[in-house]
């Protein structure tokens, strides 16, 4: 029995068009042309308990809108969503007590008070017992190294520190389902890494079902086995991330360093030249041919160094998006 089941979810928005200028402003007072935008178009999928799933897609694809419909913030225009046996848009307190949400650009920590106090607020809101609260808080403080941070006013924390606390705030009540909307946006590499590790840990330890949206493909690759590719509101792929890559990563990049300079034109027959320097050249070669090309060049030219790289993740995904 899936914990989340979505059937034919559609969400439309009315958008008003306004031309610039004073005349248009006056006209807009009594007549505003509008059009309907379909942000989410007939989405259907199921998610089981304990899964760690990512929604990926280009900007404006409808990922965040889908997430908002799933959490209950937005009402579906049509279709149905069932999470933990509830209809999210009813926003019943019993449902809300079992979900958590972290949004990358927004705060649920109150600005003027230390995170510690927001945690206490959550303890009261979600009715967490004293012993559970202490146990869980200790767990998170240790896991994320928050001892010195939680008593500092939120407005004085760095983005990375704040995001860690946002996660704690979202997880203190041990929700069964956690929604993460671009949780790592704006974070530096180290903070990113820590958060990624944290997400995987709580998924394993606490068996929290996690749905996240992200632009960062490395994050997605490192954390999620299953992805849903959404573009223009439609679902294009629902399955394993590695399968998706395999099917679409059809190229390898061969970077050669030479002892002497050679003219570029002679390499054109081997593959597409994507970069070149005084004594180096990078070739884009189809996957099944790359070994043959490599050995041909090694045999015929004086090579001092060779690097073989997979297609960058971003490029694969970009390719998938543009192929639609």
């Amino acid at each position, binding site marked *: 029995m899936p914990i989340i089941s979505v059937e034919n979810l559609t969400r439309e928005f009315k958008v008003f068009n306004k031309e610039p200028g004073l005349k248009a402003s006056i006209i807009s007072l009594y007549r505003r042309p509008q059009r309907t935008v379909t942000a989410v178009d007939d989405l259907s999928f199921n998610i089981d308990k304990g899964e760690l799933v990512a929604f990926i897609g280009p900007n404006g694809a409808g990922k965040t809108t889908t997430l908002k419909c799933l959490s209950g913030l937005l009402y579906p225009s049509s279709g149905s969503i069932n999470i933990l046996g509830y209809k999210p848009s009813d926003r019943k307190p019993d449902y809300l007590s079992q979900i958590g949400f972290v949004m990358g650009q927004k705060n649920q920590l109150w600005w003027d008070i230390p995170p510690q106090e927001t945690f206490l607020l959550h303890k*009261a809101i979600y*009715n967490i017992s004293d012993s559970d609260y202490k146990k869980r808080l200790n767990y998170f403080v240790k896991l994320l190294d928050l001892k010195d941070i939680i008593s500092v006013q939120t407005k004085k924390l760095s983005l990375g520190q704040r995001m860690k606390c946002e996660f704690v705030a979202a997880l203190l009540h041990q929700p069964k389902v956690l929604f993460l909307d671009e949780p790592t946006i704006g974070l530096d590499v180290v903070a990113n890494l820590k958060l990624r590790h944290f997400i995987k840990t709580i998924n394993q330890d606490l068996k929290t079902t996690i749905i996240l949206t992200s632009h960062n493909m490395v994050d997605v690759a490192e954390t999620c086995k299953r992805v849903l590719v959404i573009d223009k509101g439609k679902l294009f792929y629902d399955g394993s991330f590695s399968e998706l890559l395999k099917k679409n990563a059809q190229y390898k990049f061969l970077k050669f360093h030479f002892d002497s300079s050679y003219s570029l034109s002679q390499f054109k027959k081997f593959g597409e030249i994507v970069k070149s320097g005084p004594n180096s050249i990078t070739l884009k070669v189809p996957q099944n041919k790359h070994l043959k090309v490599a050995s041909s060049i090694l045999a015929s030219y004086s090579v001092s160094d060779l690097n073989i790289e997979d297609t960058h993740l971003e490029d694969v995904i970009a390719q998938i998006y543009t192929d639609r």
Partner: protein
Amino acid sequence: MANRYQNLLSVWIIIAKNKIQNQLLTPSSSFLFIVGKLFNYSFSILTILAIFGQNRNIQGYTLPQALIFVVFFNFIESLIQFFFRSLYTFRNILIKGDFDLDLLKPLPSFFRPMLSGPDFLDLPLIIIQLITLIYLLAFYQFPINASTLLIFAITLFSSITIAFSIHLSIAAFSVLTTEVDSLVAFYRNLGRAAAVPTDIYKGLLRFILDYIVPITIISTVPAKALTSLLTTQTLLFSLLYSLLFFFISVSFWRYSLRHYSSASS
């Protein structure tokens, strides 16, 4: 169910504790604000005294009655501001989009806009005003017995209900349009009319004060209960109207939430 109310109370207490701490961090600033409010309060009493001067009766009201009205007006204003001041900062939360996250908590949706910012700078004045009120009632020997107090309690209930509903409606407007500040300022301005019994006003203004933005029920009606000037008719009407007003504002609030489309990333 009782559990839920207990939760709300503990949440409010945590918020209140933090608010006090923050306000104590800037003692000189807090002091100046309190002094300013004290001046406003004292001056309003002075004005009434000056207006009555040698006259025993203005528009059918005596000086003792007028004093009760002005003191109670100040008291209820301070009390309402104490509880609902967070509405003034609601706009920021809306614009940043943080309100979304509030909606996903098992907390009443109006909690953050309305009840999340008790202003303890009003507290010293509330106490002073309450003491003044009791003193005046005793000094001028207004008849206060159990039934007066009961009636007063009912009018106080209607008063707070209306105040709550007005603030909730403003919150609903701001969810739809983000125009909070002007509406709040407009309401506060209008509210000053009740420093004197609203009976003295006529025409459209009176109609607005009685029915559209029922300042009359907030200030004048409870003060009349204390000075034994309240008719049963007015008492019943205020109670029923406040309940009606409450239901309308709650429906309006629900309506605004339904149409609330949070801005996408």
